[in-house]
Each structure stands twice: as C-alpha cells, then as structure tokens.
C-alpha cells in the first residue's frame, strides 16, 4: 500500500478521529497531536488493513486507547488537564448569538460526563454511528450502549434545564 492508497483510506476518517480525540482530551492542540500520532501509527499498521473488517473501527479503537494513555500519563504526572479551549473560532458560525453561551455550556456539560458516557454520546449524537457500531468499538452490548446513551442525554438535560430555569423557578 503506498501513501496515496493509505490517504484514501484515512482522509475520510481523520476528522472524526480528531473530534473523538478532542472530546476525550478537551484541548484542541493535544487533539491535533494525538490525531497525528494515531495516523502515523495507522500507517505502520497499513499492511494489516486488508484483514480488517473496518479500517475506521480499528482507527477509532487506536485513537481511544491513545487518548486514554495520554490521560493516564497526565494524571500520574500530576499535571492537571486545563480546560481552556471551549471557546474556539468555530462557535462564531452559530448564528444565534444569544444561544452561544448555552451552547458552550452544553459542550462543557458533555466534557464533564464520565468517560464512557461521553464517548457513547459523542459517537452517537455527534458522529452518528449506529448503536451496533458503537457496541462493537467499545466492546459493549447494544443494550448497554442504549442505557449509557440515555443516561448521558438525561444528565445533560437535567443540567441544562437547571440552568435554563435558574432564577425563574
């Protein structure tokens, strides 16, 4: 497999990998770094691509493990993950300026979810994977995926309504 064929496999997936990394690592720079490293790792595995059922699923697994490793490294070296990258230039694309705060709030709520819930919610509601794909990639059964998803959505709703009704009720 040469570079061109490899890129044809990887280019459609790389943005998804990046967003997944960002969901887990929060920082944009770190997510970019992680994606780069994951893609290079994939390049070294390219000979196995033919044997894989889905390159994307494999890539997602590698990304997830890479990010977990990064997070573990951080917590063990007592470095705190600093959540400073919530507001990036993308948010300007949202037209409803009055809602921008609430949008950032939701994104923050998502990042505050437990890792498993965050991952499932991200894969379902942002990347729109089917439950069976999620189940396969996270080594869960589909019922567990549905329950986790429901829990994550409800947690966010609860927090969101609390904020929305703040000072009203």
């Amino acid at each position, binding site marked *: 497999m040469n*570079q061109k064929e*490899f*890129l044809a496999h990887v280019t459609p997936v*790389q*943005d998804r*990998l*990046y*967003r997944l990394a*960002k*969901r887990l690592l929060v920082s*944009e720079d770190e*997510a*970019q770094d992680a*994606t*780069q490293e994951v*893609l*290079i790792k994939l*390049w070294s595995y390219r000979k196995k691509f033919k044997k894989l059922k889905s390159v994307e699923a494999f890539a997602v697994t590698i990304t997830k493990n890479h990010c977990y490793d990064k997070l573990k490294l951080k917590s063990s070296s007592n470095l705190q993950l600093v959540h400073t990258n919530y507001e*990036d230039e*993308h*948010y300007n*694309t*949202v037209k*409803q300026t009055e*809602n921008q705060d*609430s*949008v950032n*709030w*939701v*994104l923050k709520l*998502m990042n505050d979810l437990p890792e498993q819930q965050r991952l499932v919610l*991200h894969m*379902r*509601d*942002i*990347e*729109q994977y*089917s439950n069976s794909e999620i189940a396969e990639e996270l080594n869960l059964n589909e019922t567990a*995926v*549905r*329950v*986790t*998803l*429901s829990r994550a*959505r*409800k947690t*966010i*709703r609860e927090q*969101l*309504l609390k904020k*929305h009704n703040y000072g009203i009720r």
Partner: protein
Amino acid sequence: MELDKIENLLQLYFEGETSLEQEAQLQNYFTSDKVAAHLEEYKPLFAAFAVAREGSFNRTLELPEDKPKRYWIPIAASILLCVGLFLTFNQQSGSDQDLGTYKDPEVAALKTKQALFMMGNFVNKSTGNLNKLDAFEETTNQILK
C-alpha cells in the same frame, strides 16, 4: 412538522430509543427557527452537536518514508562467513600435512647443521656481550676487597 410528533420523539430520544433518522429529524427541527416556545430550552443541546461536528484535523501529515528492505545483506554476510570458515580450516589442514621435512637425509643433515651453526653464532654473539659485565666485578673487588 407536528408538535406532538416532536415531543414524542424527544421523549424517546432521552430514553435512547430513537433511530438515527429520527435523531436527524430532531436535529433539523431544533436547528430551524420554528422551535416552539416551550421547547426552546433544548435548542442549545442540538446546536452544540452541530458545533461539535465542525472541528477538523488540520495538520499536514508527514508519513515516515519506508526504508527499502535490503534482503541481500544477511545473505551476503552468511556467504562471507562460510567462505571465511572454509578458507581458515583449509589452511590449517594444509599446514598439518606439510611440516617442512626433507626427504633426502643428506640435505636434511646439511640443513640441520646450518641451523645449529646459526644458533651457535647467535649464542656466541650474546655471550660475548656478557663479558663486559666482568668490569663491574673488577671494580667492586677493588673497593670491597
């Protein structure tokens, strides 16, 4: 779209029971500007999903070049090793057979004589040099008596 249907979908959505298509309908509804007032609070949720879908990987990827595999290096090394071993063993066995003996006894005697003379010469030369040491003895005898 009827409000009932949306409310129903929303209910299912939080139970995790909606299909991807139904979720797309919800997404469409909540990012449009016709959201019913009492559902307004869910707008940021779906707006956030839309925003989160936008990030992209923007680094240029530099893939490490493949090093051409040199299959011939180990092969050449093993051939060299074999040749080397073969040559050294051959040499040794050759020197085992040829001990430098002479077949003709006369020549052998002559050569032996020659060799012994040569050794004698060397011995004489070196013992000649030892004579000079007597000088020390003489001087010490003079002093110590």
